[in-house]
């Protein structure tokens, strides 16, 4: 064989090999969170030119803390959406959890007790949602819409419509947990960082994560493969509720007070954050980093509008715009693929 044909063969082999294995960069550019991250960078560069305040330590600190709560909740929501489900009750659950934590601590109980009481309530709500959806085969939309009303109403009843702003013996500690910072990073952001790492690991390296994706991809196939589909579905609603409960716990500590209106209408922002971050409402596609990145973009839009002197009333307009744009872009990229 001549050296020419040899090198020709080598070239063909190389192209075939190159076509087979995508580089990590290529596979990265195929994910939604990557493009949202680029959008965040662009928005950041623009804002740093437009406003001198944008990159100030104070402003960055505020952005980070504000988006952390939504990021925490978007993580749980991402798991729910990955199974082709939805949870509309997270905002109301925040109100209920916040009130329970507040009342328990106001009555003179310890922080730990308040924390577990709040998380216990969240667990119960998640379990109720999950069991109704998985075992009684009810539509997630309807079950959690009902829970949205029930949880908010319960929060109103047990709070007697009064604000709680005294948190008993551990008040100092509680306000620090919600409003303080470590190494210059707000505590809620630490919680978000740790939780994101946990979700990333769970989505990529745990059997639970694998099964969540399988259930979202093809329930029937998952069931035939012996995956306990019902338990997986219950688990995502429980996990999601616990995330919402944790976000409420942190948020009340930051505000230093709680009313039963806590978290009102947050479910829309949380779902938007997860979807902007690449979670597909049809199920089976989700990214652990997607929720936090989506939440960050939304907070950035809010902050930018504020700094640019455009009224905050426009915020929902732009959030909505980005949500539709994100889904639209995903459609286009998918079309190119199949």
């Amino acid at each position: 064989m001549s050296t020419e044909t040899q090198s020709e063969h080598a070239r063909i082999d190389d192209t075939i090999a190159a076509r087979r294995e995508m580089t990590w960069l290529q596979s990265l550019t195929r994910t939604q969170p990557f493009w949202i991250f680029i959008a965040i960078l662009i928005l950041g560069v623009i804002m740093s030119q437009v406003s001198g305040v944008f990159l100030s330590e104070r402003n960055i600190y505020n952005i980070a803390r504000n988006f952390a709560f939504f990021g925490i909740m978007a993580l749980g929501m991402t798991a729910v959406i990955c199974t082709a489900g939805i949870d509309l009750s997270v905002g109301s659950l925040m109100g209920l959890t916040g009130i329970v934590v507040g009342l328990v601590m106001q009555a003179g109980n310890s922080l730990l007790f308040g924390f577990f009481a709040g998380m216990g309530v969240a667990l119960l709500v998640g379990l109720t949602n999950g069991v109704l959806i998985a075992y009684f085969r009810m539509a997630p939309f309807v079950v959690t819409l009902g829970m949205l009303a029930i949880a908010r109403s319960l929060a109103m009843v047990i709070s007697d419509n009064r604000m709680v702003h005294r948190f008993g013996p551990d008040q100092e500690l509680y306000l620090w947990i919600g409003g303080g910072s470590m190494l210059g990073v707000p505590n809620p952001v630490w919680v978000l960082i740790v939780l994101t790492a946990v979700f990333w690991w769970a989505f990529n390296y745990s059997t639970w994560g694998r099964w969540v994706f399988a259930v979202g991809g093809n329930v029937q196939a998952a069931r035939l493969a012996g995956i306990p589909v019902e338990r997986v579905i219950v688990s995502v609603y429980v996990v999601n509720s616990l995330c919402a409960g944790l976000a409420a716990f942190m948020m009340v500590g930051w505000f230093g007070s709680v009313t039963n209106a806590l978290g009102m209408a947050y479910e829309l922002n949380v779902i938007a954050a997860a979807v902007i971050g690449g979670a597909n409402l049809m199920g089976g596609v989700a990214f652990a980093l997607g929720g936090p990145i989506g939440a960050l973009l939304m907070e950035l839009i809010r902050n930018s509008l504020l700094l640019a002197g455009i009224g905050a009333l426009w915020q929902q307009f732009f959030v909505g715009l980005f949500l539709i744009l994100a889904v639209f872009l995903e459609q286009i990229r998918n079309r190119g693929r199949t």
Partner: protein
Amino acid sequence: MPVLHVRGVSKSFGAIQALGHVDLTLDRGEAIGLMGDNGAGKSTLMKIIAGNFPPTEGAILIDDEEVRFTRPVEAREKGIEIVYQDLALCDNLSAAANVFLGREIKKRFGPIRWLDHRSMYRRSGELFAELKSETRPRDLVRQMSGGQRQAVAIARTRLSDPKIVLMDEPTAAISVRQVKEVLDLIHRLKETDHAVILVSHRMPDVFEVCDRVAVLRRGSKVADKPIGDTSPEEVTGLITGAIERA
């Protein structure tokens, strides 16, 4: 002693009777071709054996012991593997993830266990190579051709060492070369004392690898003969109803 004994099995879906009093036995090292027109009840019979749903009447015996599966996993634990006609794959997962779905390989450190991606990629790569399939373990099933999907579904049955392998039209979507690999696989299964039921519309496949052929027509078994005692013409007649019974 037959490894599988289907005894007087009937199955109704509401008003539709999909199977009526079907008897079938299968020995170790034997492959039986199950043929019949569309809607004859072939898949229904396979799914009953694989534990997807219970029969309305009759019983399934494995090694002379009656079994009542309520879930497919229970059948798998008794040594029954199946390739479903619709393949039952998750489009959003990789080939390797599908092969190992429900029986993932894990690593452990103390109480923590995590997916051993490397082993699963390697093992499924070996299985695809064995089937001479171009399937790549890391590819998403969504992007795969019909033949590659079929290879994934067949590879699933190779994870354990089952007693009985049920294949519901495993060669429906694949190339001549890959058909040969599937038929070779069935030969190997027989040599190693496995029992196989092959559902197929492809006469040559059945006549090449099967020892017996059984024909279902409108839910009833109308023939069950050694391959040597019949011919493609007779089987065709039995399927269409031109020949009543044999």
